[in-house]
């Protein structure tokens, strides 16, 4: 009994000491004040030096929170509880958030740096006239592969993946739209197809791919490719850039049949409390030099045309990550197909996964 009590007291004392420590650190950092801005972003998706620079320039303290999927972020914003001032969802989620009335319209007058964005990436179907969102980074879905592990073989189309010589070599990304989309693209259908016959055909074609699929994975595909565990991966271009930074043997290609074009965008959720500061932050991130520095850190493709001149040449001229306008024409942005169609995509994907054994 004595022992239990002494441990109890010790535990409480340690907790109190730790609490005091956090309190002290928070005050020291100025998080306790009112002049704050809560930013909700993907993990490690910003150069933190820029946050410090923003804090210095404006005197606003940035509270930085992170999420690991669009859907999880949506749930948090929908339920309220935290007043996020700026969030960075992907394009298909923006459409959903607009429909659910979760976003505040942007005041373009407060965003003079909006002119820096490439016109190609403005006024897209998911957010006409950029009423609610500003592109942050963009990219494609494609194939990363290691020619050294494939005997010098080159890939340039989705249909190449069905080659029987690629047994147990491919990593697929764990996303229904990406994988079913791959089947659709390889058959020449649109990524936004909702015709059930077409979707069935795509699924049947995908089942034939089964022997070639090594695993269906998430973010760990980067680790696997870097370490030469797998020769081919279907993934997002941003991940491909990360991998190529670590393993120089690897190449990336956007398949010639066409593929997906994606965007991560800055938005202001309806619950925002510091709307003016949020505009300030977005405008700050759109600044050419800031965007250039951020892009060098994150290494995804920047939609900021003015920033390109401040970036290293070999980065900007890499056609794999900054494809010519001719190629971007063949890329499709995901449309919000509605819950019912999405559920159908997901059912097919689940069947595909279960089929694998």
């Amino acid at each position, binding site marked *: 009994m004595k022992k239990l009590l002494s441990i109890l007291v010790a535990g409480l004392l340690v907790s109190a000491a730790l609490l005091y420590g956090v309190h002290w650190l928070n005050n020291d950092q100025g998080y306790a004040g009112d002049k704050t801005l809560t930013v909700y972003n993907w993990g490690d998706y910003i150069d933190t030096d820029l946050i410090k620079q923003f804090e210095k320039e404006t005197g606003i303290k940035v509270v930085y929170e992170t999420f690991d999927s669009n*859907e999880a972020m*949506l749930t948090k914003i929908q339920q309220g509880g935290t007043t996020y001032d700026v969030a960075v969802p992907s394009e298909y989620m923006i459409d959903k958030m607009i429909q659910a009335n979760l976003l505040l319209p942007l005041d373009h007058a407060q965003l003079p740096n909006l002119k820096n964005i490439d016109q190609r990436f403005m006024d897209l179907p998911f957010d006409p006239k950029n009423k609610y969102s500003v592109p942050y980074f963009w990219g494609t879905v494609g194939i990363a592969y290691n020619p050294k592990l494939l005997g010098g073989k080159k890939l340039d189309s989705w249909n190449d993946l069905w080659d029987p010589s690629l047994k147990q070599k491919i990593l697929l990304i764990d996303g229904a739209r990406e994988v079913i989309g791959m089947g659709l693209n390889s058959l020449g259908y649109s990524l936004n197809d909702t015709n059930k016959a077409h979707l069935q055909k795509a699924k049947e074609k995908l089942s034939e791919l089964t022997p070639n699929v090594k*695993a269906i994975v998430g973010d760990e595909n980067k680790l696997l490719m870097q370490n030469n565990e797998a020769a081919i991966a279907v993934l997002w271009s941003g991940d491909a850039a990360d991998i190529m930074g670590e393993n120089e043997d690897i190449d990336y290609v956007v398949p010639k049949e066409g593929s997906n074009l994606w965007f991560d965008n800055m938005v202001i959720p309806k619950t925002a409390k510091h709307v003016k500061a949020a505009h300030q932050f977005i405008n700050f991130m759109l600044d050419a030099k800031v965007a250039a520095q951020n892009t060098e850190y994150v290494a995804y493709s920047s939609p900021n045309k003015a920033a390109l001149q401040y970036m290293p040449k070999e980065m900007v001229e890499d056609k794999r990550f900054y494809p010519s306008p001719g190629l971007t024409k063949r890329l499709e942005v995901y449309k919000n197909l509605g819950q019912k169609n999405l*559920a159908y995509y997901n059912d097919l994907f689940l069947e595909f996964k*279960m089929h694998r054994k």
Partner: protein
Amino acid sequence: MQTKHYQKLYMVPYFLWIIVFVVAPLLLVLYYSFFDVEGHFTFTNYQKFFTPVYLKMTFSSFWYAFLITLIALIIAYPVAYLLTKTKHKQLWLLLIIVPSWVNLLLKAYAFIGIFGQYGLANGLLGLVGIAPKQILFTDFSFVFVAVYIFIPFMILPIFNALNELNDTYIDAAKDLGASKWTTFRRVIFPLTIGGVKSGCQIVFIPALSLFMLTRLIAGSRVITLGTAIEQHFLVTQDWGMGSTIAVFLIIAMFIIMAFTADRKRGA
């Protein structure tokens, strides 16, 4: 009467907990299971559960959870027994528990490295002259890592049971001429069955709803009910179907609890 009041008083926080954090979420889950993606009241989720896709998933979840629990028990019992025989047993026990405080994701990533083509496991195989094998993304790697993660949960209650075992029983059995195996079967094991039961419950039940590892270590070759629920809640946002699967999981848990319930003691 006095005693009764006391009992009720100290149980108040626990009762509150049951109502707020168990019964209320339970009702919420049940409520959600009757709605489809578009928010209409429906029974289709339950119909859908009885299609081959989900039945197959249920079957494989149970199979893997059973395998994981069985292997964990086979390893944990002797380990716990040996632990009670060591000099610094509490210290050893803590050293077994502490690694489970390292984040699951980091451990999983470490195993991806170990089981890889060029990893430690294949390196060791190479030393004995076996060609590199595909270890990652197999049933073996999945069960191995799951057992590794759950084993402290199995060791702890068994260790406690064994530690409390009164040596005089064993001596008595020996004096009566029982062999070691008979002593174990007739004396030691029955006396520690309580610990074994809690160990199995703490392992089997969460193993049913394992996710993460199914993708990280099994490369989505294994799809469990937990994976499906996670997908429905976080990816497809079909909370109705996710809740329906959860309802079946909870029913399964009730059945398991009924099976492993303490039978011999009425009060």
